[in-house]
């Protein structure tokens, strides 16, 4: 079995924990509860006949006054960078998260989740620039959540 460590990174309150809960437990809670530290979840999946185990690190969001401990990044093979589509600054802030993560793990793969897409109109969604590694996700409506994790795993196996 192939085991991979991945991190969810992004500003606070973008919905990282909600994405993990949707993917692992198929649940969603609208109430915002700040994550502190890190919580690790496991998920077994099969990609093209290969048994895999994802170790998903749900890391607390960074705030203007609190940055993420670099110790969490050690040994990661991939990352999901998460933004909140309703807060432009969280989308713009993704580049800084990518830069820090990739400087610690230069060979790691990543995908991007622009989350809370349920709050966008269809027209606004169409205007968004997405590529094969960028997803408009909604933990609330279970939109593109599984596809996001599977794409990252595929990228890490390729």
């Amino acid at each position, binding site marked *: 079995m192939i*085991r991979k*460590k991945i991190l969810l990174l992004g500003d*606070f*309150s973008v919905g990282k924990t909600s994405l993990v809960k949707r993917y692992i437990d198929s649940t969603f809670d609208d109430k*915002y*509860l*700040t994550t*502190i*530290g*890190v*919580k*690790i979840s*496991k998920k077994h999946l099969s990609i093209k006949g290969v048994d895999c185990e994802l*170790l998903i690190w749900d890391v*607390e*969001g960074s*705030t*203007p*006054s*609190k940055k993420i*401990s670099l*110790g*969490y990044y*050690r*040994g*990661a*093979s991939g990352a999901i960078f998460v933004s909140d589509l309703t*807060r432009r*600054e969280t989308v713009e802030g993704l580049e800084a998260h990518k830069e820090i993560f990739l400087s610690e793990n230069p060979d790691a793969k990543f995908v991007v989740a622009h989350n809370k897409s349920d709050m966008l109109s269809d027209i606004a969604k169409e205007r968004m620039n997405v590529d094969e590694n960028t997803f408009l996700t909604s933990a609330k409506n279970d939109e593109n959540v599984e596809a996001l994790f599977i794409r990252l795993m595929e990228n890490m196996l390729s």
Partner: protein
Amino acid sequence: MKNIQIILNAILSKDIFEYILVDRSFKIVSTSSGLGKYLETVPKKGDDVLEYCPEFFGSEKEIKKIFDNKSMAYVLESVHKKDYYVNLSLEYYDEDRVLILLHNITDTTLTQQKLLQFSNESILLNNTLQKILDSQNAILFVTHNNEISYTNDQFMKYFDMKKILDMKRKNLKIYEYLDESLEGYDALFERVNSKEEYVTINKDTFILKATWIESTHKLFTLTKITKLTDNMQRDTLTGVYKKSYFNTRIEKMISNNEEVVVVVIDIDDFKAVNDTFGHQAGDDVLKEFSTLIRNNIRADDVFARWGGEEFLLLFQHANMENALKKVEHIRTLVAEHNFKHVGHMTASFGLTGKNESDTIHTLLQRADKALYEAKKSGKNCVKFKNL
């Protein structure tokens, strides 16, 4: 070793530490009895520690170094395990074993989480309020001692600034745009508090309002109305300014004792165009004539339609010699222009400059006399009436 002994004693006496001893192949050698509360299943001797502590996956190389180096340690803080928060630390026990300590920090972490939750919610609320403020008109917030303490995004963008300090760097004094004699924000407030004022900044017109905030701070709002007022001030046929706007501008220049040159312009034999080609052709000539002149004057010159085929031109900060050259150039352009429908046309021009006792009336009267002389001299010429 002494430290570890102390910690192990603490483990026995309190409920805040649990431990796991692992060998070089990460197999569990022994654990403390209370470890189960942090794990889904109770580990057994010989189990792979990574099954119970996946936090160490990816860090195996670093951990192995601890077996050979007593001074090394590995720490992972605030890890959520089951219903608890723990700090995980690994340190040398002996050459074959590493001690993993799980330090229960749940109480302090939950307190920190409450504070962080409150802080994050405050930041979110603050960001939302900031976005609301930024979406409004330009805002300037001034303290009791006339320090600028806040400007919103609209204000910053308009004045091409990134931070409040840039105002000092640019020596930007909003009150001087309304009246150069105003000496500060207190004076501006006195002026604007009772009634809103129109203020022109660069090429834009704003409604300026002032409000007290908590009796100590002054809030100024600038509402841009340039497009609205500009449309209202323009002649619908030709798109040039109306006489009323011309009057407003010239009055301000007279009161500021600025250098002014006024030109009255009349299209020669315009009546014949209407009579021969019809009024539609006449309107087209007026539009074409206006465009021709607008394209050949400076942005801060004022070009207006007085009525019929008569126009006004106002040169700011121009001396008479340069103004005469400019008007002569315009006269030539008009005379050489081939008007649609009607071919060549000419215009006559009367100029004058401002003296200290001038009013709008005396200025226009003198320019009109110069125009009369141009007409009497055979049209298609520029005449100047002395101060």
